[in-house]
């Protein structure tokens, strides 16, 4: 049986860009995902994808400046959960992010690129809108009943 989620109001969290807030962000996102009808396994994937997107903002876009703010919005539309994570920091070229070759990364001591790779694997669709210093946004979509990942 395929259940249909009704469109929802926006659930929004705006808070200082600090890694100490990651647990709070995960708690918020997981509870919203469960409340609107995702099961625990799917909610866990959404939780991790949002953590990765926010970690990128905290570490790279804002360079650990907790005076800046992250804006997270969740909304159900047409049986999909759409999550946007927005910042006004340094942007990046999403086309330049490639799936890391783990073996090469280990040999060279590099650690980057894993987060974007995970987000793309865990979510059904990921779109980037990058306007450095103005507004950068990652939009992640998860369909209800998508159990391919």
């Amino acid at each position, binding site marked *: 049986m395929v259940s249909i989620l009704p469109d929802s109001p926006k659930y929004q969290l705006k808070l200082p860009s600090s890694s*100490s*807030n990651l*647990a709070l962000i995960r708690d918020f996102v997981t509870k919203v995902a469960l409340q609107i009808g995702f099961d625990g396994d799917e909610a866990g994937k959404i939780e991790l994808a949002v953590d990765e997107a926010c*970690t990128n903002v905290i570490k790279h876009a804002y360079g650990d400046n907790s005076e800046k703010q992250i804006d997270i919005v969740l909304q159900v539309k047409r049986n999909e959960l759409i999550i946007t994570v927005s910042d006004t920091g340094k942007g990046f070229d999403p086309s330049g992010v490639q799936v890391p070759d783990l073996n090469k990364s280990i040999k060279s*001591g590099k*650690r980057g690129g*894993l987060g974007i790779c995970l987000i793309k694997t865990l979510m059904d669709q990921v779109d980037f809108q990058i306007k450095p210093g103005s507004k950068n946004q990652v939009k992640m979509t998860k369909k209800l009943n998508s159990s391919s990942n």
Partner: protein
Amino acid sequence: MISEGDAAMYKGGFMQGFEVKNSEKEDISVLGLKGYLDAHTVPDLENAFQNLVDNNKYKIVVNFEKLSYISSAGLGVFMGFIEDIRQKGGDIKLTNMQPKIFRVFDLLGFPTLYDILEEEKMAVEMFTSA
């Protein structure tokens, strides 16, 4: 009302929930992880690894039994130390992962490059029989 124990976890930030405990089994070091490992708590694990390397401890088992969450920041630690440790004749072996934790390692291709075992004793035996 939340309990004093819960209140302590929230103090200074939302749930300071990560611990790493080091125990020694002859020349093998076992790191037991507990709680959640993300970009905020990952320095504690970095420090634990750095301490082992500084003390020439290169046979390392990491037991994930009590770890409930990991993000790619946590996986980065294992990537950062493994080459140096293997060059010194050691290894990092990973054990007792919950399915949710294993999935993250699996999605990023770690099982082809790291020994991931069901039980801590299996990893210890691999070191002692090598």
